């Protein structure tokens, strides 16, 4: 056997083996399996009824605390369907997928970790039995995805135009951040906010091109998000080709900095001789940004369960005299009480948008900190707040101290050299806050120290979402580190160590050599 044939034979064997492995493990897109309604009912009545209700009517004890509300299975209307646009009902695989993956940002969790595949099919069979919408109709065919257009600059450009002609921007905003121009409701009357396309992780029906194509083609039933399939009866229709282009455009809007990075909880403050003039100064562009999740204030009465804003992004720059923060957050609404458009979009009473920055007044030496919510009796915190104002009162900044939730005293912003400016554009608030690094008022103001880890926390109010007073979103303690300018010791110390070690070893070698002789 020549070397050549043996190589070929090995190649063939490896090929066959690879093929076998691939076919063995290639998991086909879940195929509808027959579910057992009785078994599904048992699972449902243990796990699901708390939200979806004992009869599937979306009236479980948790339902009234959730926006979006849980799905009402008695209606048989599902949001995330991939069936052909001509068919009203979803495919069994759609229900299976949502149960498997859950729906980010809603109460609906993913169930694949505790329910087996068969369990999930059983529960699908059960929830289908709660409505007569499905009747005897067989599982509908999937929407045709064979004409997929690969993403390319041209396709994205065409998609951008389709985004305009189909008027996606009326709800999703010019830059896709969901900054809507009119109030939107689910058919049930519940409030609904359009998706922010810069945050792929917030998509609820999957983030592959096929998923989004199905969404654009089918719309999202039960919500104002219309179907754009050409044969649908909606106002803005798009051809199959344009729907693929708009999908590519939507996916091109993803913004990596609008994602919280695991374990990164330090704001990296850099030194600059001159600080930015305002929040739109280009000098901010090179400052590193750190993102933090917001959670609603569900810790003390009055609690608040249905937030809209999900994260803040923060940058910091400083010099000898001053420190400047840049706080950015995507907010679908510019909440200015008195503004007619803002008034019509708002749910509940319209109040101004606000952002607050909290830092301890006394830095402890150990790990001890003030309580993250407004400090506590023994540990005061300082708060800088910016308020977007109304049509009659301008936007403004204030400073105060807290020693517990309702224990507040105003402090003198002028003494701290405090100023705050903010502006709203295309679905994003940018607010810059500036103050002195150190002040004369050591027991009233935080003293910012270079090179020290300073605890820092944030709170945010979306005034169009009924957020005011104790109803707001917040972060827990994170860190701010003002990086010391790279001193000479960074080079000198290693150099010194190098010289000492080399010299020391040579001396020792010399001594040992003499001894040996």
């Amino acid at each position, binding site marked *: 056997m020549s070397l050549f044939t043996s190589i070929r034979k090995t190649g063939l064997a490896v090929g066959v083996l690879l093929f076998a492995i691939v076919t063995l493990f290639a998991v086909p897109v879940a195929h509808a399996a027959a579910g057992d309604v009785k078994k599904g009912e048992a699972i449902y009545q*243990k796990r699901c009824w*708390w*939200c979806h209700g004992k009869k599937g009517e979306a009236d*479980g*004890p*948790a339902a009234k*605390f959730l926006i979006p509300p849980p799905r009402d299975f008695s209606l048989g209307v599902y949001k995330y369907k991939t069936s052909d646009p001509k068919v009203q009902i979803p495919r069994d695989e759609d229900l299976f997928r949502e149960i498997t993956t859950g729906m980010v940002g*809603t*109460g609906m*969790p993913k*169930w694949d*970790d*505790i329910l087996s595949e068969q369990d999930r099919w059983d529960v699908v069979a059960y929830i289908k039995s709660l409505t007569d919408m499905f009747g005897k109709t067989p599982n509908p065919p999937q929407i045709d995805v064979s004409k997929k257009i690969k993403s390319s600059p041209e396709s994205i450009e065409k998609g951008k135009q389709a985004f305009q002609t189909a008027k996606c921007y009326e709800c999703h905003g010019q830059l896709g951040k969901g900054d809507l121009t009119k109030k939107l409701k689910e058919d049930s009357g519940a409030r609904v906010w359009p998706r922010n396309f810069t945050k792929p992780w917030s998509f609820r029906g999957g983030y592959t091109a096929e998923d989004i194509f199905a969404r654009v083609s089918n719309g999202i039933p039960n919500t104002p998000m219309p179907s754009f399939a050409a044969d649908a009866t909606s106002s803005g229709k798009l051809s199959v080709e344009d729907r693929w282009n708009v999908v590519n455009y939507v996916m091109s809007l993803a913004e990596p900095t609008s994602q*919280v990075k695991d374990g990164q*909880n*330090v704001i*990296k403050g850099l030194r600059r001789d001159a600080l930015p003039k305002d929040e739109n100064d280009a000098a901010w562009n090179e400052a590193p940004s750190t993102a*933090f*999740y*917001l*959670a*609603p204030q*569900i*810790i*003390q*009465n009055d609690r608040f*369960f249905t937030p809209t804003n999900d994260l803040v992004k923060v940058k910091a720059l400083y010099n000898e005299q001053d420190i400047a923060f840049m706080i950015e957050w995507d907010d679908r609404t510019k909440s200015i009480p008195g503004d007619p458009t803002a008034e019509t979009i708002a749910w509940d009473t319209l109040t101004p948008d606000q952002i607050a920055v909290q830092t301890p007044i006394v830095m402890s030496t150990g*790990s*001890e*900190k*003030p*309580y*993250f919510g407004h400090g*506590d009796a023994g540990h005061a915190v300082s708060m800088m707040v910016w308020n977007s104002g109304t049509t009659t009162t301008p936007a403004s900044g204030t400073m105060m101290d807290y020693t517990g939730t309702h224990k507040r005293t105003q402090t003198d912003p002028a003494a701290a050299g405090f100023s705050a400016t903010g502006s709203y554009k295309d679905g994003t608030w940018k607010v810059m806050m500036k103050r002195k690094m150190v002040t004369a008022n050591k027991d009233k103001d935080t003293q910012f120290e270079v090179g020290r*880890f300073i605890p820092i926390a944030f709170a945010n109010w979306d005034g169009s979402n009924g957020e005011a007073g104790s109803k707001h979103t*917040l972060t*827990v*303690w994170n*860190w701010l*580190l003002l*990086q*010391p300018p*790279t001193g000479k*010791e*960074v080079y000198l*110390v*290693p*150099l*010194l*160590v*190098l010289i000492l*070690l*080399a010299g020391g*070893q*040579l001396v*020792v*070698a010399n001594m*040992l*050599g003499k001894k*040996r002789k």
Partner: protein
Amino acid sequence: MQFLKPIIGVLIAYLLIKIGVPFLGSLHHPGTWPVVPTAVMKMYLTFIIAGAFVACTFDEEGYNALITPVVDLYSNPAKAKLRLCAVTAVSLLGCWIAYQYVKPTFDAPVELRSVHPAPPSSVTMWNKSYPLQTLKNPFRAPDKAQLAKFTEEGGVIYYQNCFYCHGDKQDGKGHFAQAFNPMPANFVDVGTIAMLTESFVFWRVGSGGPGLPSEGTPWASAMPVWNTMLSEEEVWKAILFIYDQSGVQPRVTDVVAEKK
């Protein structure tokens, strides 16, 4: 070759901490890769290296076996080239370690937290004092139907107050959980309510994060102070539910054990 042993030993220990620990963690919580923080790693390595040195130089023989090749390297005229290499390598290594220490970083400080600090012997909530040693869940009724009723009432309380953080699956991954640090407790994990008595849990739920002693970092815990928002009965029923739904048993009280 004697002097290679401790080096290999330290290397294995390093790999165990660097890869082994996160691997075990990932088995326990699939989908995660919990690395050991750099500062903790440095601390462990210091101990391990010191330990390895002590172990190897414990007796005269071991000491000699370790030290002779080194002395030889630094004094043997025939090994001049190798010696130069060793001197350069050691010096550069020292230089690099020194640089790691002084270079500017943004690594957050490590904060250790005692997850289950010792409870007080009694606690005052709802204007009443509860002796934690002997406290029992008054709703753990012997009657099955009654117990089921109380448990379901507890479920309603759980789904109106707790699941945002502790999750529908009691796994600590409610839809707002990701914003909190420490993360909400995972009740299906063996390390939480399964190893606690109901009275301990009652203390924790009733007095919340701020009720912890300082080793439990009360300033960081988002666990609400439930005695200000729920009644005593509601807390007991919620506790019935979290045990039942997560399928674990409370630890029986220490008092029983002490009597023996």
